[in-house]
């Protein structure tokens, strides 16, 4: 068990190193932050001095080595755009992104699963067809368009909900939450629906097809033959077996939700890490971009690690196989 965990952790570290390297390599194409920082009037000497201050005059491998060395100690340097510690910036932004992502994941789950069950059970009704067609739109419409449409209807036309921002927040230690204020909750509605929509349709379609599959299996037929009520068959037997792959997917999708919150955060001016990243890209703010990409890589690596460990715990066959090949 320990050897397995150790191996996975080592692999994760390797993945992180590769991500950091690729991310850092890409920065050579984002342009020159010094041009932004000094503006058009700066002299060549001023530019060179700032480049030296920032370490940008060093060759690529030196910059990279320095970055990795500092990053290991949790030091990502100063944001070039804001002149503040990158670690502080990320810490400030983390609660907004996590709240949005988790709420979106919950919406996706608690709306997606029932809809999936419904469309599987009543698959020939017109409502099921309507839902399936609508889900196609959810899958194929780009997130920013959905966001803008929601803003147009609920903020501009009806005036019910705010079009941007996070509303009032309450600080709990270093964590800020919008879940405890009315304006915070109102502000959360549109972005979380926007972010949830894709995952929701995905879950709905997944549950539906799994459910249809399960409903065809023998044990469901036997259950019917035993005279069990529909309700017991559908929810007690069919849905339970459907949920195994669904939970796996949701676990993996949570990482995707956090990472792809970028678009939603930009549309709604949601002050999370995605927005921070987008603004960093525009400004060629290398320290922020590097830290963000490493963070996202870390999230994915951690989730994968946990999923692997869960498999290991859940599936006895894995343990036996590993034990057999280990020697």
């Amino acid at each position, binding site marked *: 068990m320990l050897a397995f965990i150790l191996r996975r952790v080592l692999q994760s570290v390797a993945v992180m190193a590769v991500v950091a390297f690729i991310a850092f390599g890409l920065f050579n194409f984002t*342009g020159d932050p010094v041009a*932004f920082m000094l503006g058009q009037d*700066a002299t060549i000497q001023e530019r060179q001095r700032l480049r030296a201050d920032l370490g940008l005059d060093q060759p690529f491998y030196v910059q990279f080595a320095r970055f990795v060395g500092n990053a290991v100690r949790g030091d990502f340097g*100063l944001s070039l755009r804001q002149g503040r510690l990158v670690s502080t910036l990320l810490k400030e932004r983390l609660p907004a992104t996590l709240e949005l992502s988790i709420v979106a994941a919950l919406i996706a789950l608690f709306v997606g699963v029932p809809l999936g069950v419904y469309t599987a059970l009543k698959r020939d009704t017109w409502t099921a067809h309507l839902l399936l067609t609508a889900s196609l739109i959810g899958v194929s419409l780009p997130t920013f368009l959905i966001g803008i449409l929601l803003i147009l209807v609920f903020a501009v036309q009806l005036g019910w909900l705010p079009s941007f921002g996070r509303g009032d927040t309450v600080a709990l230690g270093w964590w800020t939450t919008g879940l405890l204020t009315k304006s915070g909750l109102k502000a959360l509605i549109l972005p979380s629906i926007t972010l949830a929509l894709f995952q929701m349709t995905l879950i709905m379609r997944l549950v539906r097809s799994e459910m249809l599959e399960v409903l065809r299996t023998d044990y469901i037929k036997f259950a019917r033959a035993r005279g069990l009520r529909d309700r017991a068959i559908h929810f007690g037997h069919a849905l339970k077996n459907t949920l195994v792959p669904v939970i796996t997917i949701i676990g993996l999708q949570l990482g995707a939700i956090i990472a792809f919150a970028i678009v939603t955060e930009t549309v709604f001016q949601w002050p999370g890490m995605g927005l921070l990243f987008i603004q960093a890209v525009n400004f060629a703010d290398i320290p922020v971009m590097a830290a963000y990409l490493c963070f996202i890589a870390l999230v994915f690596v951690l989730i994968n690690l946990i999923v692997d460990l869960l498999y290991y715990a859940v599936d006895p066959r894995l343990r036996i196989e590993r034990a057999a090949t280990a020697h």
Partner: protein
Amino acid sequence: MRNRVLTAALAAAAFTAIVATAVPAKTLRWSSQGDILTFDPMAQNESLNNTFSDYVYDGLVRYNKKFEPEPALATSWTQPEPSRWRFILRKNVKFHDGTPLVADDVVFSFERILAPSSNMKVYAQGVKEVKKIDDFTVDIITDGPNPVLLRGLVDAKIMSRAWATKNNSVSPQNYAQKEENFAARNTNGTGQFMLKSREADVRTVLVANPNWWDKTDGNLTEIVYTPIKADATRVAALVSGEVDFVLDPPPQDIPRLRQAGNLKIADGTETRIIFFGMDQWRDETPYASVKGKNPFKDKNVRQALYQAIDIDAIQRSLMRGLAVPTGSMLAPQVNGYTDDTSKRMPYDVEKAKALLRDAGYPNGFDVTLDCPNNRYINDEKICQAVVAMWEKVGVRAKLNAMPCATYFQKIQKFDTSLYLLGWATATFDGLYTLQSLIRSVRDNSADGNFNLGKYSNTKADALIDQIKTEVDDKKRNAMMREVMQIHATDIGHLPLHQQIIPWAMRSNVSVTHRADNRLDARWIKIE
């Protein structure tokens, strides 16, 4: 005991008086694409940043509505010698923390502006020394006669020495130290507004300074700034009434916003001129098909490219009217502009073809046009349109469009044959532009620092060097006119147009449009 009652009664009376005279809160909630980078008035020379520095900090002088310098923290000034200016400071000015403004703060502020890590050095260009004479008199000594000193001083903001020293902010942001600067998120100015709260990228709140030394026509008591990055969301927030003012509404939405009943648009031109520059220094230019010579060294070729541009088509269909075509490198608001130097050469395809034939390029040539795609209004589209127009006369330009972060890195190394650039005259005085764009390149100086095709004319150079120190306005303006004429005759650059930048707001808000795209709080009125 009786004393205490009396004090309480007096306090209550005073309080009632304050409440009775208190004006109703007038809050302006406004938005644009990006956030303020820092509140340190010497850390970033960027338009939005300077806008907020104007709210919180004052300079010795400031602009009036006609962009002429007028007294601010200095009540008057004299020039005892050509390179010595004496400023008399306003008495009874207090910083937001209650400490009085004295000459020493002015001396300190100029030290800070001229510090190596300052980005506002350009506004104190030519300042050699600032001396305290007494508590309310300072002398600014320049390294020669300096006719644009006052205009620079508008953006040289005055900070408190005691406050900066106490908070370890004696010098502006220094990236080498990897430390956050206290002054970046805390302020102590003398200005009309005080910073109340700041959450980067979320909300910045300023409240009116009750002890400000001046009165205004405006009635603003609070400013709430929220950056909204997405164009559609920013407009939606304006339409739905969540913000009152948008500095940068997207051009395609302007016609629709004009029609909306509860909104209005303030149109105004910017001092920025959009133009093309051409490599005029290499013997063979790197990105053209012509070998062994540089076609742009030939004036006929430059003129052909000029006259092949159908500027009216660009203005009408591409800019949708949001541009004023010009033949000048200076905007009309800028000191030094004259009408006679800004006539455009007419659009004439046949003439352009003939000129190219005369220059020895009957079949034209290939060249790469470098162009930014996220810096100016419709920058890439302008380049696309002009590429098509040049094609008609035989010059086949290949468009190389890129984001400004990479674009400026490339062209500032002079690594270009043909490029598009926009240039705003920050000081509202022509020298700023002539020196940067027309003066021959002199390393490690502002001379020609954006003359990226290295246009060079010795006569123009000599005149520009004289303009730098000429204090007689009439002579100086005549010289600027002459430089503009020389440049226009040489066809040193191909000017296109001046951008019109519309501001959008709710109809109960009235503002004064500024050609440097700064929303001036002094003149905002909310009904």
